[in-house]
């Protein structure tokens, strides 16, 4: 837990003097349930990301629906705090759906 009395755990902020918050946004009108692309067929961003920030999953609330339906699948950047900001996903996405900001 580190030495912070309030409980802020900075032990994982290895080597970064100031922790910047990375925001990764995926435009779902271009990719996923609303766009024409089935994330399960594409998976380029998943493969290109070294620290594995992205997660391919079925949408929350779609539990009762058919899991084989492409409409219930999407990709979310679940672990933005481990992002290395290499921009590989931004360059690799064929639909230009990903934006990374910090």
């Amino acid at each position, binding site marked *: *837990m580190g030495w912070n009395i309030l409980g802020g755990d900075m032990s*994982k902020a290895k080597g970064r003097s100031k922790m910047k918050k990375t925001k990764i946004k995926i435009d779902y009108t271009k990719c996923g349930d609303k766009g024409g692309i089935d994330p*399960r067929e594409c998976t380029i961003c998943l493969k290109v990301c070294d620290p594995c920030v992205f*997660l391919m*999953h079925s949408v929350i609330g779609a*539990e009762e629906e058919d899991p084989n339906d492409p409409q219930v699948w999407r990709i*979310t950047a*679940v672990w*933005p705090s481990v992002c290395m900001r290499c921009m590989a996903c931004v360059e690799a996405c064929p639909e230009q759906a990903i934006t990374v900001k910090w």
Partner: protein
Amino acid sequence: MCQWCMKHGAGKKWYLNSKNYFADQIAPENEMREYLEEQWKNMENLFIRKIKGFSSVGLGYKMKMPIIGRVLRAAAEGMIHSEKQHRNPVRADGHFGQAIPLEEAKLIMSELAAEPIIENYCLCRYMQRGTKECCCINFGVLSEIIEKIPRYIPKDRVVRIDRETAMERLEEHNKKGYIASVWFQPVPYINAICSCESPECGGLRLRTSFDLNAFYKAEYIIQLDQDKCQGCKQCVSMCQFGALRYIPSQKRVIVDYDKCFGCGVCRHACNNDALKLIPREEFPGWDGTY
């Protein structure tokens, strides 16, 4: 011996206690079946679920916040280690694992695992990397459930395998560089041996990036014989955790014991027999650090 060995080990390591492999001795079978069925039906939904009102998206930042971070950490760990009667399957209550060396994985496979034994796709790797790789071995009640869900099982090969084949597969995966790990699902029922890879594995991700105890270090730790090490650097490429590093001035490999999970995968690469696993308890300074 970790805290789970004390609780569920009956004097041994928790995964060597044969009682933990029988579902009907731990909980009523229907309850166990219900939990596993619910969990595996929507396994792809599990990661982004909410932890006590917090979405797990961006967990890293939330956990670094003062006060809230500590509350969230306690909530998440309580959830992972939950031993309550009615656990929530879609939040993966009571699902965590530990690294084990290949020898013990084989021992479990040959003597302890309940029939039937099946091989299925690694869901973590599918969700995080988009690749389907057949490297999880499940047994007991869980395999009967997974068999019925077509997207988890390979089409072109036999799903049910015998103990010898399972041991061969484990060895194959381990030599490739995957870490053998044994899982509670839910605690104290043991029904899976996986061959995990960092950072794709869900448990390893929570442990290595957020320091949540969803995955424990093995009961062993690596010991490097400095005289035998020739500095061929082969083991460095095998370590998933970056615990081994080559230093040119000494022409040998150094070990970061803090990062070592004791999985023993590096031993397969060593040509000079310089790396061996010793029990963590016998290693001064690192006993009790799981």
